């Protein structure tokens, strides 16, 4: 899906936990996430910290969208 939306003309950031799958399907911008059943959260944190964690990940994703890439790139930090 990432690939087809990008083909349509939009930059896509793929936020996912199993990065090797994302690389195999051909995502160009990838942000690794927390866990398969809760990629953008962590139920062990209190709600405030959990939201901060999510905000941090989304900020990373947005930053990746403003970054030019030539090849598949995993945005770790």
């Amino acid at each position, binding site marked *: *899906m*990432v*690939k*087809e*939306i*990008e*083909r*349509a*003309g*939009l*930059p*896509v*950031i*793929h*936020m*996912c*936990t*199993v990065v*090797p*799958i*994302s690389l*195999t*399907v*051909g995502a*160009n*911008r990838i942000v690794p*996430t927390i*866990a*398969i*059943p*809760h*990629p*953008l*959260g962590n*139920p062990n944190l209190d709600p405030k910290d*959990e*939201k901060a964690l*999510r*905000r941090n*990940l*989304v900020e990373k*994703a*947005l930053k990746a*969208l*403003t*970054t*030019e*890439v*030539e*090849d598949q*790139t995993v945005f770790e930090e």
Partner: protein
Amino acid sequence: MGKIKVVHYINQFFAGIGGEEKAHIKPEVREEIIGPGMAINAGFKGEAEIVATIICGDSYFGENIEEAKAEILEMVKKYDPDLFIAGPAFNAGRYGVACGTITDAVQNELGIPSLTGMYVENPGADMFKKSVYIVSTKNSAAGMRDAVKKMVPLALKIAKGEEIGSPEEEHYIPRGVRKNFFTEKRGSERAVDMLLKKLKGEEFETEFPMPDFDRVDPQPAVKDLSKATIALVTSGGIVPKGNPDHIESSSASKYGKYDIEGFENLTSADHETAHGGYDPVYANEDPDRVLPVDVLREMEKEGKIGKLHRYFYTTVGNGTAVASAKKFAEEIGKELVADGVDAVILTST
């Protein structure tokens, strides 16, 4: 050679431990024959025997690939088997990646002949078909008998170091290996035969299938986030509560487009997940954990992004055919472009 000693790898589901709620279990080893191992072991007809079964939760493996691999390698080493078999994984994505990863590691790090099996569209197939033998199976466990029938003879051949025939003869996924051999007819004759068949509209088999390198070049970056419209798309199955369009929990045949205007965040009162391939407890408790509407709303208010697009698009990425996903995304992509969206955040579980 005595009886061939086999170690078998399966996930929590095929071990009968549990479904998605048990997908986080760590690797463990049992000196028994379990689940699909029964049919495989019977297929060996006494020539080989499963001495141990290693079980690991699919989510644990997917989230901790390096650790899981190291732990399982240690377990395999202890038994010093003559053969290692993983799966078959059919079209289960995380399971397929686990089977591929561990088969590759056992074969190439421990030097033990290894084999796995899965459906050709499983992401694990593309990742590992070049490094290990992957028997091509059907896309669901209904194909177990067929899978075992194909895996057993190939496994025995690999264990005994016998010559392995072509992918068609041995039913494994082509590895891209070329082999020289002599044929009865020379090239020009074969080419003309093929051309004649093609002209008559008959089926013919190419001798040189083109590799499929379907890559899309990255689109240019967003210049100014504060003016950009960002859309959310997910394969994690987030839908309005009650799943109004009945998106299937696996092998989805459709996607949904839902209005989130006025939603400050998604809650258990209004949204849930339709996905059947992961433990839904956390996403149902707070759907923002899969689709971060709360944070993007906040950033929209702060002026960090121009706008959160009014609609989100969703489907269930669980054994969904690649062709379906491709079709959904072509339509979604077209609409998003037409609606003036600048960039997409796509979340997957």
